[in-house]
């Protein structure tokens, strides 16, 4: 078990998502930044979809109740074990009663904690990803205990990954969305020539951008949406759906982010800057 002594700003357990229930309105959930999460699991030689902890902005304080190996990836939150600094993208041995803490956010927004073998919570509808009301709790809280299997001996093939943060700068590559043709020359010019600020309205469901562009009066029937779908509201606001985003929506879908760009956006926080580039 790992015991949560402090929850941090917003920490959840996530795997690669809950597939197969979109037609019942269930968002896929899963890690926001798949690139970072997969790297941590890879170093621990876990399955790519092993469940890890996604930590947002401010990390939790955790105590391990048995020996294991961990790897932290994504945003750098200055992690340390028993007060001694450790680094991201490195396999670290932890012993019984070791305490993992985090400091000030250095870059990005979401950090991942992988444990050897993955966290062993119950699957609901085929996934361990936390999403209320599919799972009982929306996020982790103080006092929670999360199971994992004890590992005393593990000799990793690679102990450390030299990696550049894949999420800087904030260039989002997009494909045309189903309602792309709705955009006039003026709107296209505004979107592709300007940069946009991430607003305070950003979470696992969606990211809203601060600046607006010219709106529209197109009304459409509700239709399917995906993580990475860029919607334009009638008032000209840009909303980008993320992993916990609704499965259908009624706003024009002007773009669809590339899979990598979803990971980039997942590492952005309020006041960060992003811009768009159309893929050919």
């Amino acid at each position, binding site marked *: 078990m790992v015991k949560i002594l402090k929850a941090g700003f917003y920490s959840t357990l996530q795997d690669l998502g809950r*597939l*197969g*229930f*979109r*037609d*019942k*309105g*269930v*968002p896929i959930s899963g890690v926001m930044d798949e690139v970072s999460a997969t790297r941590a699991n890879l170093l621990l030689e876990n399955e790519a979809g092993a469940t890890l902890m996604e930590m947002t902005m401010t990390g939790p304080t955790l105590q391990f109740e048995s020996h294991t190996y961990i790897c932290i990836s994504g945003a750098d939150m200055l992690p340390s074990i028993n007060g001694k600094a450790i680094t991201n993208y490195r396999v670290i041995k932890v012993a019984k009663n070791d305490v993992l803490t985090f400091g000030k956010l250095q870059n990005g927004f979401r950090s991942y904690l992988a444990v050897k073998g993955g966290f062993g919570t119950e699957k*609901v*509808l085929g996934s361990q990803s936390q999403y209320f*009301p*599919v*799972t009982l709790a929306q996020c982790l809280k103080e006092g929670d205990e999360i199971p994992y299997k004890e590992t005393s001996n593990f000799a990793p093939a690679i102990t450390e990954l030299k990696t550049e943060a894949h999420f800087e700068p904030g260039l989002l590559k997009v*494909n*045309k*969305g*189903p309602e792309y043709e709705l955009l006039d020359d003026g709107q296209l010019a505004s979107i592709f020539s300007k940069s946009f600020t991430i607003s305070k309205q950003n979470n696992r469901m969606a990211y809203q951008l601060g600046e607006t562009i010219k709106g529209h009066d197109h009304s*459409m*029937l*509700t*239709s*399917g*949406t*995906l993580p*990475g*779908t860029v919607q334009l509201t009638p008032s000209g606001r840009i909303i980008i759906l993320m992993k916990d985003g*609704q*499965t*259908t*929506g009624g706003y024009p*879908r002007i773009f*669809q*982010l*590339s*899979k990598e760009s979803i990971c980039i956006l997942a590492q952005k926080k309020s006041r960060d800057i992003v811009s768009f580039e159309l893929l050919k």
Partner: protein
Amino acid sequence: MKSYPVNIKPYGEYAILLEWPNEVAEDILCDILDFMEHFRTISGTEWEMVPAYNSLMMVSQGDVLDFDRSKQLINDSLFTRATSRIKRENHLWHIPVCYDAEFGIDLEEVAEHLNISVNTLIEQHTAHQYLVYGIGFLPGFMYLGGLPSSLEIPRRAEPRLHVAKGSVGLAGKQTGIYPQESPGGWNIIGNCPISLFNPKKEEPCLVNVGDKVQFHSIPRAEYDLHKIEAEVGIYKPKRILLHGQDT
């Protein structure tokens, strides 16, 4: 059974959107669902498909899509859908609703606005079968069509921060049930004691797109009973098999 023209659009690296004519019509939804069943027999579980009103979103579970190749596959399947002998199974669900003022917090206001009595409102709301055009917005939230125009009322000017789980509402041409507590701007006229979405079940949502729903009015005592039955998992909502439409 009518076969409509279908527009096939790319939707990012992993999805394709199929669009039928831009109308809310039972025949269009049936054509979409028939195609879905037909395509599923060809492709298995390779694709996740989300139908809603006049569209079908198809999401690949595998690698990045080759749009032209997928389009060809879909087109072939659209061409042969009329000859498919697959029978879709859809049901009519009888859903209990308690219209007591305790739950129907906007009932009197709505009746006044529509210039009918509360009893007439309940009679009209329970007299029709509503077609499930889509499930989305929240897990288990049904987009129901077929509301009589006499019950059309704009959504509330100020949305509420908390609408109770099970609340039955009216807004524009729509009626529906909130499957969980959430913010919302619909006019609330009653409450449904049974859960339409239960993640503990292998099939978490009983109702499918293409099913129909008819409400019936129940007194408070029956509401309490169904609520307990639903909580312990012994409530079985009444359903009737609808006959698949032949060509």
